């Protein structure tokens, strides 16, 4: 565990008029035993970008996301993040406290299963408030009003604030998980299959909500999904993964309408027409 922070300033003098990437992933690798789960993956994410990571199960999508969020330690490469408080930092070189602070304030993580992202035996309001309190908020009235505001944003009726998430439907639990993430006004949200556990009508509602939220808030999003329709609807850019490698990346509609790589072609031609 490293305790001292090292601020690596970005060397790349990006031409004038260009923006700075919020997140830069360089040559990221992770092996489990002999298997390369993530193999030299690189990409940049800018404010307002929504990037979908697609591929079949086992292609390394979720592992990639978990490495970025430092849920899993990676073995190669680096993750540079342009933080609000510290400038551009190399995530692996931050102390655990600093990492946690960034993850709690500037990032959000939406798990596929809302149970992994919520505390099931405390109220909805407390689930949201917990994130604020971990950052030092103590004024009960403020916390409650911010929680109500967050619930409203994800279209959960404020009257449900004192109910326990275990009494919520799957779709509501997922929205609550998103509200919990939004309350600290993150700049980047990582999502792991956020809609795949939901039935079709609930999924549509959540997708619409996510689309509007990301647009209005100007959020940068990395969304892992196996559903190409979800990618088309939400993401402007897309990365296709196979065996841990990125085999094709670019504009979402270009990749879906005119795929170049044999695997992407296979993936796109396998979509059922609804």
């Amino acid at each position, binding site marked *: 565990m490293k305790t001292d922070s090292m601020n690596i300033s970005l060397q790349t003098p990006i031409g004038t*008029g*260009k*923006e*700075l990437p*919020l997140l830069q992933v360089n040559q990221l690798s992770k092996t489990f035993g002999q298997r390369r789960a993530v193999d030299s993956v690189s990409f940049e994410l*800018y*404010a*307002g*970008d929504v990037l979908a990571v697609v591929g079949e199960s086992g292609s390394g999508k979720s592992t990639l996301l978990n490495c970025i969020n430092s849920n899993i330690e990676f073995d190669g490469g680096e993750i540079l993040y*342009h933080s*609000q408080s510290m400038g551009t930092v190399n995530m692996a070189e931050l102390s655990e406290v600093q990492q946690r602070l960034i993850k709690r304030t500037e990032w959000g993580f939406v798990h596929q299963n809302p149970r992994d992202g919520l505390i099931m035996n405390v109220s909805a309001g407390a689930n949201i408030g917990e994130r604020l309190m971990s950052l030092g908020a103590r004024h009960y009235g403020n916390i409650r009003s911010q929680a109500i505001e967050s619930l409203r944003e994800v279209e959960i009726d404020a009257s449900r604030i004192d109910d326990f998430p275990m009494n919520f439907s799957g779709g509501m639990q997922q929205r609550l998980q998103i509200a919990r993430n939004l309350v600290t*006004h993150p*700049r980047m949200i990582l999502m792991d299959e956020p809609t795949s556990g939901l039935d079709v009508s609930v999924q*549509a*509602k959540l*997708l*619409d909500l996510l*689309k*509007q939220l990301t*647009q*209005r*808030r*100007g959020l940068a999003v990395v969304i892992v999904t196996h559903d190409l329709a979800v990618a*088309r*609807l939400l993401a*402007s*850019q897309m990365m296709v993964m196979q065996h841990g490698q990125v085999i094709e990346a*670019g*504009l979402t*509609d*270009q990749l879906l*309408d*005119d795929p*170049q790589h*044999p695997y992407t*072609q*296979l993936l796109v*031609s396998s979509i059922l027409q609804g």
Partner: protein
Amino acid sequence: MSMNTNPINSKFDSPILELKDVSKSFFLHQRSSSPFKVLENITFSVSAGECVALEGASGMGKSSILKMIHGNYKVSAGHIFIQHTENNYIDVAKGHARDILDLRTSCINYVSQFLRAIPRVGAFDLIKQEAIYFLQKVKRPQSHAVELPTLILSKQEIQDLDAKVEAILQKLQISPRLWHLPPSTFSGGEQQRINLAKSLINPKPLLLLDEPSASLDHDNTEIVIDLIHEARQCGTAILGIFHDADVKNKLMTRSISMHDFQPKP
């Protein structure tokens, strides 16, 4: 920066769109081991205030040209320059995904044959969303922004947007009963008009039209012709595919034959 505030202020003499030696090949890995060329030697340009019609039978690659310009299809070779700001062109063939996305929000309107709607969202909101994205682009100058501010629209701005959406829906004769229903439930002609409204609500320098009147009745076709004509007179550069000869003759200022772009055997 005066960028994006008034999209249609380009000089009339410099082209808005310029294609140079563009070709397109498809490579279907499951079917064959070599690419097959569908288009080659595409060179032409479109200036502000022009309406250029692509002429040729089905299957000659008219839609493919529009898709390459919009970035849905990869350009196999050549260049497609689109005027981004005065004296500044972006080559869609070489541009990074973010450049193309930037072009789409600020410079290109593309009316495809099919409406891609968001489930659950009503027609009115769908069109309003488009207007908000555009406003957002104008309001958030992106240079050096690591963070985009949350977009908060004033009451007045929301009222103006609503009025704009209402006006275009009325002009396109979409019955107010339908405004708040999702367009996936609409008839073909209604969907097509929603698709047009989505584009025409934000005037941009380049308008790509893929059969804008395909499933419209006579009255609605006339309305659509008027709207497109109006856009052209405001200086929009238009490249279109029009199967209906009457529509084509009323709109086009020049035509380009697809025969010139077919690969030589």
